[in-house]
């Protein structure tokens, strides 16, 4: 992983029209963008490709007017999600009848999960954790991916999920708490 200084210099080089720097940024982040995109819209790879294409071509078009992001990975994931949601015309709903936390609480039914965990001798550990994660709400799963794979901090997760920082932290905390108690 390249240091922040190098990454920001790279960004400035790209802004001044350096196509090689632009290509390097693409190569450094496209894999993460792809898997994140596919986790949001698993049904259409072509659609994800189109969205990544749009993000990068728009960057090029607007390069002179952009600011240097603190975290390029975060900036690109956010741009991708905005693009995907924009095209799907399905903006994150601001007013939910329940609060986010309440909504996530509704998701799993621990009793059935408990039962299932105890019969798990046959499964290996990976299958087990994967099944447990599948029991979490989609937003909790997304938060876990962003936190433990993409290394986004809570402020960045909050921005990607359109919630505040504290809610993002709670979301991850509750997910981990659940996993911990299920796995004990």
């Amino acid at each position, binding site marked *: 992983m390249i240091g922040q200084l190098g990454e920001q210099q790279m960004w400035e080089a790209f802004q001044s029209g350096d196509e090689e720097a632009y290509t390097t940024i693409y190569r450094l982040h496209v894999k993460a963008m792809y898997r994140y995109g596919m986790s949001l819209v698993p049904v259409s790879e072509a659609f994800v*490709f189109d969205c990544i294409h749009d993000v990068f071509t728009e960057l090029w078009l607007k390069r002179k007017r952009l600011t240097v992001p603190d975290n390029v990975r975060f900036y690109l994931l956010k741009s991708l999600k905005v693009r995907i949601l924009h095209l799907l015309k399905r903006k994150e709903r601001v007013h939910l009848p329940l609060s986010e936390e309440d909504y996530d609480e509704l998701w799993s039914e621990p009793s059935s999960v408990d039962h299932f965990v105890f019969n798990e001798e046959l499964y290996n*550990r990976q299958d087990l*954790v994967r099944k447990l994660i599948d029991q979490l709400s989609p937003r909790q799963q997304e938060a876990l*991916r962003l936190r433990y794979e993409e290394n986004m901090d809570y402020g960045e997760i909050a921005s990607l999920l359109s919630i505040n920082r504290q809610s993002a932290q709670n979301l991850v905390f509750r997910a981990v708490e659940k*996993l911990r108690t299920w796995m004990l």
Partner: protein
Amino acid sequence: MDLKFVLHDYENFNTSDFVVDDAFIRHHLFPTRKSQHYWDAWLVRHPLKKKEWYRAKELIEAVQLGLNDYTRTYLSEKDEEILLKRILTTNTQEITPSAQLVYVWKNPWVRSVAAASLLLTCLVIGYMYLTRRTVSAYNQHNTVLFSSAIEKTNATSAVDTVELPDHSVVLLYPQSHLSYSNDFGKINRTVNISGKAVFDVVRDPDKPFIVYANELVTKVLGTRFEVQAYDDSREVVVKVISGQVSIFKNKNLLGAPAPSTDQRAMLLMPNQQLTFSRQTEEFNKKLVEVPLLVLPPKTPPPSFDYEETEVASVFADLETAYGVDIIYNKSLLEGCQLTASLSNETYQEKLNIICKSIGATYEIIDAHIIISSNGCTF
């Protein structure tokens, strides 16, 4: 991404607190010498917290293990390159807005109209994405025909050679795809293509070689032929270079596309070409534009040297050499003779010379050549 430690009161942390702590996670994802040093020292100072700390570490590892499906959603290098190429191509078509345009933008009326049309465009694009054209015939075939397929794609600008497990050779043209089953050749020899390809099929009468190409299914035993079936083209074209092939329409794209016997097959001979219009669903059989010599193996080509030769035997030579049908009135042409050396001429040139010298004309109808003549008057 340098570490910035927030001075947490880690004394009271339990396992879950550690697991969600930014600094703790970052250390496990991207440990640095600094973070290593920090936590080593911390653990020495807090021996009682050691158990919780390690449990937290295990939990993070478990979560990552569980997210394995996610991290393994892997973008292939090929797709990465294709996408990059596409992005760079779009960038070269970049249009720089002129100063005049910027001025126009300041007009609020223009802006609201533009905003409205932008919204409309977004809606249209969104709609187009949601109702994207249905899966191509090629993709449909792939899902129905093969449980696990090997796919070859030619993304270059040159023709690619693909050798199949039975040693049949496929020349795959640019922007074309070829798929075949993992166990190709075990029971049958089935391939599925999109784009253009020339097949040189090894003869195996027990296992017919079957090519799915959009709406057409081509079945052969051992031949050389070309198929053109681009996803977005209006026609499907099959040209036979040698041997013979049978072609039928694949009625049922969605269901099992098994070549059923009740369907009427079209037989195609060398130098013949079949064009299927995808819109009108009509077949058109004709001669290829440049017929080539097609002789059975070990047959020497005719010399095409003629010395007062009956024109009927000249036509017979053409028929065997190029595998075409020539239709003419035998009694009318009786007595017509030809003296010429045609060994270096192409098929078309030969036909022209012959007809000129006997005062005849010809036309090509379907895959036949019809000779019109009033007989030889000398």
